[in-house]
């Protein structure tokens, strides 16, 4: 009780520096948690976000570009493939489902993707979950109708019955408006996948849109593939990528995305390093703050020693004080983390459609705050040593 009373009063006495120092700890801790959680969660979310497909077949080029284009609706299409290529893979005995997509248009920055109704009717984007409609109905093949993903509908204010003119290209340019008028037939329920950012229209809609090359009217941008067995993927990989030289078979999707994260892992490490440095600076701030207050507190500590407090009690009080500042900062750090993470998650969702979960658990959620408290306690050792060495008699009164 005595120890805590000393610590409590010291913190109260130096309330301003306590709050400022704890705030710097909170920022450091929040930043550290955010960097770590965004990194681990985005890696997990991106590698898991395969829209229910095992592989993507597309024009010859980068597998990563193919996956980003067909699954994440980012990046440009590496090129088209012929309808016969789609038919060939659809009929392959190792393939369970093959769904073609065609891209090339947008509505104010949100992609229009042409596809077949089976994208929603048969494909499960996650185990046991198919693309369900929140309102309205699915588009009719051949009609100028659209089904909007939940996020795109919310951002564009689309609802069933609305009409729009698509824009040419994947990037929004108001000069490139198509003449065709599409009617929103329905809005999909949220799937928390990149598909939420897409406006789906019939495949033929993109293929035959005014201004598109009529020679490519039957081409598709990619074919999304579900396999009957994982081993089939390696067989098709051999067939398309090694033996053939016209098409690219991107398989497995998760491994390709993992490669992307591998490529940008240096960036993660830089962010981590910055977060660790901020944590170190915050711990140094604790050290400096308490150390600077030592001169003013020297007499109080000498009085405590004269009252019977042992050196190690005084040492412990100063270390505990540093740890308490660290703990206060770490607690506030959770609030900083929640705010930062919510902002970053919203940004990632807006840009990619991938949803990061705020409530997800990771050991870093307790390791970082505990580590921060330990670091602060360690920072408290230097001023604690100064307190430990205070000469009681000299400090209390001059020799008379």
């Amino acid at each position: 009780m005595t120890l805590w009373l000393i610590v409590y009063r010291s913190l109260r006495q130096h309330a301003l520096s306590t709050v400022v120092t704890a705030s710097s700890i909170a920022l450091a801790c929040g930043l550290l948690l955010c960097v770590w959680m965004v990194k681990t969660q985005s890696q997990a979310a991106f590698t898991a976000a395969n829209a229910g497909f095992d592989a993507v077949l597309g024009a010859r080029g980068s597998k990563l570009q193919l996956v980003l284009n067909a699954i994440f609706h980012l990046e440009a299409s590496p090129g088209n493939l012929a309808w016969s290529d789609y038919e060939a893979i659809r009929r392959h005995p190792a393939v369970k489902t093959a769904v073609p997509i065609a891209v090339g248009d947008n509505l104010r920055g949100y992609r229009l993707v042409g596809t077949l109704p089976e994208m929603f009717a048969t494909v499960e984007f996650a185990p046991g979950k198919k693309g369900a409609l929140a309102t309205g109905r699915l588009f009719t093949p051949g009609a100028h109708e659209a089904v909007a993903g939940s996020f795109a509908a919310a951002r564009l204010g689309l609802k069933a019955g609305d009409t729009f003119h698509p824009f040419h290209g994947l990037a929004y340019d108001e000069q490139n408006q198509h003449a065709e008028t599409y009617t929103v037939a329905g809005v999909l329920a949220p799937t928390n996948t990149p598909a939420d950012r897409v406006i789906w229209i019939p495949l033929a809609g993109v293929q035959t849109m005014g201004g598109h090359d009529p020679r490519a009217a039957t081409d598709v941008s990619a074919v999304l593939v579900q396999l009957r067995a994982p081993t089939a993927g390696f067989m098709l990989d051999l067939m398309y990528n090694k033996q053939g030289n016209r098409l690219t078979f991107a398989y497995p999707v998760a491994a390709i995305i993992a490669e992307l994260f591998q490529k940008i892992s240096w960036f993660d490490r830089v962010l981590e390093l910055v977060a660790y440095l901020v944590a170190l600076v915050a711990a140094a701030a604790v050290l400096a703050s308490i150390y600077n207050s030592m001169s003013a507190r020297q007499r109080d500590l000498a009085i405590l020693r004269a009252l019977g407090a042992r050196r190690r009690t005084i040492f412990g009080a100063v270390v505990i004080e540093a740890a308490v500042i660290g703990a206060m900062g770490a607690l506030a750090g959770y609030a900083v983390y929640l705010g930062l993470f919510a902002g970053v998650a919203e940004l990632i969702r807006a840009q990619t459609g991938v949803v990061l979960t705020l409530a997800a658990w990771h050991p870093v959620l307790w390791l970082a705050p505990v580590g921060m408290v330990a670091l602060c306690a360690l920072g408290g050792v230097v001023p604690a040593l100064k307190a430990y060495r205070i000469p009681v008699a000299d400090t209390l009164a001059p020799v008379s």
Partner: protein
Amino acid sequence: MLAVADLHKSFVSPEGGRVGIVHVAAFALAAGEQRALRGESGSGKTTFLHLIAGILAADSGHVTIDGVEMTALGESQRDRLRAAKLGYIFQAFNLLQGHTVLENVLLGMGFGPRGADAVHAREILTRVGLAHRLHHFPRQLSTGQQQRVAVARALANRPRLVLADEPTGNLDHRHARESLVLIREVCRENDAALLLVSHDEQALAQFEGVQDFALINRPGPEDRS
């Protein structure tokens, strides 16, 4: 209660030599006894009290308190003995400015074997007339009230010996007289021996047993550099 034998303490002078400050051949105080030592400023009175309290380590000699030889103990054990057996009233009161009156007294008890006892702390503060100032900070009190807090703190852990170093030095005559009466009464009520050092003749006049510190403290000329 208190026995001092051949106690010696010197310090290093700015010139580099050693200056003897305390050399007390023999001094004793019985349980419950109240004694005052008269001495001028700079005569080594405070150092003598610091040596008895174990705040300073002696160069040589013996200090025995309640049967325990303080000078034979390590620093940590001296701290423990001080917390258990001694109460100290400082000239400048030495109250903890960031702590309330009650907390100052609780901290006076907190390092002793009985620990902080809020009920007893309140009782003793009531005894010194500060029941209505428990949650005030020292800066909110008059000098006389601060002195009473120092008295309450020194007595709070039920010490066997109270050391008072110029306890009236910061008080006017009326408050000094009242304060000494209070210190002596409270020590008596708590069966604590009292050793007071002062150069204030009016304060010393209230004691039956007054000794000149210069007569018992004889730092030899060989100690002076």
